[in-house]
């Protein structure tokens, strides 16, 4: 039998090694963000010559220039709106569909489920031309109603709907696996208490699926917030474009204005970091629960 001191020392060393490893991993994650922030305060000429992480003479005005030159005011509102609407719709539609597929008796529900799974294999960029043709034929790209306000509503919907569609498959897949695990007894007792089908979904299933919903929210927030290609394809009016359009102003074919680009990226990253900070507990629970079930 070995000395208990041996175990204690072993535990301390292995814990130290683990902590050091985790600090190293965390540093590799944080370093690009710090570098981005530091670069955003340099000038176009010092960004390549000043290798310090934080410049001696920070150019805070880069943020003002990036905000105004990139017209971030309009784009910021658009991105917040697109992200909020798309994510809310995805959560509502996927939770309803997943609950229906998981708990309700209906013919062909497995076929529908597998069809959604198959749709996950088709990335939007692979279907750009077809999508463009469909949206043109449905009148989402050039509505031409003659009323600016109505035209804008239709064009925005033309951008939001494909993104909701894109988010459905993964959401349904994740939530169905959660709903499958809910004990039937819970539903039965809710019914005894007078809940209908929708009541069971709303009062029982949905609250239990919060961790999974948090993961769906963060995945889709990231996707919609960073979406750019679809906007370029579908939207023609600059005032309807999302935030990523503002970043493009700083990147030319041969020339990139790095400090302004970094300022712009810092601005765009802040909301994502905030969303993650507010929801991190649910996200971690959701991911670990998914792993345990998987």
């Amino acid at each position, binding site marked *: 039998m070995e000395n208990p001191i041996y175990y204690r020392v072993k535990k301390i060393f292995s814990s130290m090694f683990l902590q050091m490893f985790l600090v190293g991993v965390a540093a590799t994650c944080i370093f690009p963000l710090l570098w981005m922030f530091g670069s955003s305060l340099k000038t176009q*000429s010092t960004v390549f*010559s000043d290798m310090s992480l934080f410049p001696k003479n920070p150019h805070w005005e880069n943020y003002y220039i990036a905000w105004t030159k990139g017209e971030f005011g309009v784009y910021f509102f658009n991105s917040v709106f697109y992200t909020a609407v798309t994510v809310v719709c995805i959560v509502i539609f996927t939770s309803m569909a997943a609950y229906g597929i998981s708990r309700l008796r209906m013919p062909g529900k497995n076929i529908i489920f597998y069809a959604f799974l198959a749709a996950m294999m088709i990335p939007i960029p692979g279907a750009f031309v077809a999508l463009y043709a469909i949206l043109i*034929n449905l009148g989402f790209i*050039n509505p031409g109603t003659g009323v600016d306000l109505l035209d*804008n509503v239709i064009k925005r919907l033309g951008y939001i709907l494909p993104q909701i569609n894109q988010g459905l498959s993964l959401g349904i897949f994740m939530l169905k696996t959660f709903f499958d695990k809910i004990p039937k007894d819970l539903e039965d007792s809710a019914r005894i208490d007078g809940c209908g089908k929708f009541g069971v979904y709303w009062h029982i299933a949905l609250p239990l699926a919060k961790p999974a919903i948090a993961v769906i929210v963060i995945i889709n927030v990231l996707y919609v917030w960073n979406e750019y*290609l679809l906007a370029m394809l579908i939207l023609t*009016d600059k005032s309807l474009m999302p935030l990523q359009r503002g970043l493009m102003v700083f*990147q030319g*074919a041969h*020339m990139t204005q790095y400090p302004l680009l970094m300022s712009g990226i810092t601005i765009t990253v802040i909301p994502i970091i905030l969303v993650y900070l507010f929801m991190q507990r649910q996200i971690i629970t959701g991911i670990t629960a998914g792993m345990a079930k998987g």
Partner: protein
Amino acid sequence: MRKTLLSIFVVFLIGLSGCASKQASTVESSKKVVVWHWLTDRQDTFLELAKMYKEKTGVDVVFELYAPSDIYSQKVRAAAQTDTLPDIYGILAEKKDFSSFIKAGHVANLTSYMEQNNNEWKDAFFIKALEVNIFESGNEFGVTPGIYGAPLDVMNIQMLYNKSLFKKAGLDPENPPATWEEFLEAGNKLKAAGIRGMVSGWGEIWLIGCFAYDYAFNIMGEDKVIATLRGDVPYTDPDWVTVFRLFEDMRDNNLLASGIVTMVNKVAEQAFANERAAFGFNGSWGVNVYYGMNPNLDYGVMLPPAYSSKYPMRVLGGPGGSFMVNNKSSNREKAIEFLRWFTSKNQQAYLAKETRNLPANKESLSVIPPILSHFADDMDGTYHWNNLPVVEKPQVTEMFSKGIQAIIIGEKTPEEVASEVQALKERL
């Protein structure tokens, strides 16, 4: 609960309709000439020019920017398939794809407009810039002969040298090396002064191949280069071995910056702009890049120093972007008129001044920045791989360039590389 839902619905509706744009949408408007482009760094200047045109003619021109270029290309293709192309646009594709747009009726034939008033519009361009938009009679694509686009700019790739570093090394900044011997001597002087020699994006193999071809034209002439591409002259020919040996010479005379074989062009541009190398090998687009990184950079442009006096030194060059007019547009005539104005002397000079790119209109050279003028001086003597009657196989081109990289790092001799390239060509 109901009130909350109602408020959310109202916010949603406001959001959907929010920021109602005064800017007319693109394709549906027939009063405006709509231009789609991918040139991010020129958007502001394009908008200024549109403003000038509006003041002059009363016609509204809307420039819509869609970048990067790959997504722009997808948008153009999708719009072509749904007949929703704008009045003016660019096609970023090989000539074969370009021809399919023409055959589908999406591109207006500009020949009659170009040839009006004794070829006034046509002759204003560098022929090298226009070539890419011309389909000759009997062309392999079956396209009706004609000119199907107006070029915006041109480019060529030359050598650049830092005048301040030249002075430090005791070299004459007004007389850069003109011969190969002078070039090698400059390398040793720079080394003695502790200054790095040449930087270039030779990690991107096309640039290293471009440098080699410049010297192939100088050493053996165009006919022999073409004969090699056809397979009539082997790469083991002494002239080709001489081309390969030039890289060995440069390495041995300290002309190449360390790490040049893995250097991407953006890194090379940074090094040259920040005065960390005396020579650069880069395209005319670099003028704008260097200005952005170091506006005070004092540098000159020179042809690569000639190795032989038998044939002229030629550099790779050709068109930049071009604009086409939508043949199905109800604004066709307005669009052509705008394009004519847009590519004329004053507007091209303005564009060159503001964006520091080489204009396609040769009449504007007298009023563009001097450094661009130097690039433009050699435009007529440029060559382009796509315009040669024969094109080398991609595998051979790759081995050719990688072989040169191997010579620079001392892995292979020029003779070995010549034999390997030839063996591959014969195998394919």
